[in-house]
């Protein structure tokens, strides 16, 4: 079955993919840092409000992952990465290099970019895990 993006089920499936990936475990074994991934609605999606995913990544493992109901009352994570849906779609499918997307500010990063660049292997493996999750995208039907 495919998991709807961005949902609790999807982020749980991603957590599962991360925790069974030997390559991620190896690449991220020194990584410590948690994230908000904020997916903002745009005209390519049927999403009608921003969705915030929380992920706690620690020493090659995903310790926690869920949709954040109320980001304002949630503990502030070390990194917040936000972007419109269309950009996330390309990142999650492996079409857009997330580091490059941060350099061009297509992905807006709050947090230390250099720390992420020093863990690029982990970032690559994380994207690979995303591409392994069967995903259903809430694309806006194109009218032709």
């Amino acid at each position, binding site marked *: 079955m495919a998991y709807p993006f961005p949902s609790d089920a999807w982020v749980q499936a991603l957590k599962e993919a991360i925790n069974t990936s030997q*390559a991620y475990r*190896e*690449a991220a074994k020194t990584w410590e840092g948690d994230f908000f991934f904020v997916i903002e609605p745009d005209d390519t999606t049927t999403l009608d409000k921003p969705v915030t995913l929380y992920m706690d990544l620690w020493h090659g493992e995903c310790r926690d992952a869920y949709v954040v109901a109320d980001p304002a009352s949630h503990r502030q994570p070390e990194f917040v990465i936000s972007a419109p849906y269309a950009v996330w779609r390309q990142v999650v499918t492996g079409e857009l*290099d997330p*580091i*490059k997307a*941060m*350099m*061009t*500010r*297509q992905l807006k*990063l709050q947090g*230390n*970019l*250099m720390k992420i*660049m*020093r*863990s*690029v*292997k982990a970032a*690559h493996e994380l994207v690979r895990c995303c591409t392994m999750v069967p995903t259903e995208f809430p694309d806006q039907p194109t009218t032709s």
Partner: protein
Amino acid sequence: MWFFRSPEIVYGKEALSYLEQLHGRHAFIVTDATLVERGFLERICRHLRRAGMAVTVFADVEPEPSLETVRRGAQAMEAHQPDWIIGLGGGSCLDAAKAMWVLYERPDLDPDAISPLAPLGLRQKARLICIPTTAGTGSEATWAIVLTDRSAQRKLGLGSPEVLPDIAIVDPVLTQDLPPALTAATGMDALTHAIEGFTSTWANPFSDALCVHAARLILAHLPRAVHHGGRDPEAREAMAVAAAMAGLGFGNSMAALAHALGHSAGAVFKVHHGRIVGLFLPYTIEFTAYHGEGRYQALARSLNLPAQDDPTAARTLAATVRRLAEDIGEPSSLQALGIARSALEENLERLCDLVDVDPTVVTARRVPHREEVRRLFLYAYEGRPVDF
């Protein structure tokens, strides 16, 4: 979406005299003692005075400049309030000038905070000119800064697009009498920039054009520049232009694995940057041969080298780099550098740790796992072509 960024580049014979056309009050030159001895500094001061400027000189930059030196330079700038900063020298002087300028503009900033996304708000007090005296690092055309944090024994790779110099002055007179060994080592750096800039995952049509032509110029002129020195001004001029061009190329597409391995081994064994990245270049090309996605073939074709497919092209390129290195007297293995096997083995884990955190891994087409990094070092030690 991507960017192409470039300084204004003034090049060729008498390019230095462009300094006389500048408008400003006070120029602050960042350089080292060697450049003072070679008489270049005096020449540059003369041009600046003709432009009606006061000149202050900081000639204390050491090879692999430290944070301490950078802080001292920034304080001296603060005392003199220059409106032009001029970096004069090899990569160390240019990088030091960039960093001092940032701290002069932003005394509140920790150098660690010079990152591609942090708005620095430079150019409120001064602008930056870089004048290279080697044909290699291309630092005059990039926004990268490499410093050494002596207290933590680590290299700091910093950078921000704002740090890109306003003007680069590439005058071949400055490299005319470069000794053969330095010509060779810095030339290998330029070649590595050209090849890695072309094969990096961030390569783009602008960087491609510059990297290909830089590689052509270097393959044709580096042996001449090394063997004939000042007797071959045409080769010197071509190398000066090629180094800036390669810098501009890879500065807009990033380097790759030869730089990651080179930064690591260079820091541990104290080897010249150009020499060590040039040494690793053929090994990393071979390692990436089956992951080039057509880039090696495209590059080899542009250089008129045999290239029926990507892996063949990669091997041809690696062989071409090895032949060039041999011709100009550059070492082709870590062993040939005089490193003891026991020293390599003792440091192997640290070498791998440093590669792991090197930002140039970001743009490598094949990112090695730790065991592969270990093997790359061992193969490069023995001079064995990579077959895994």
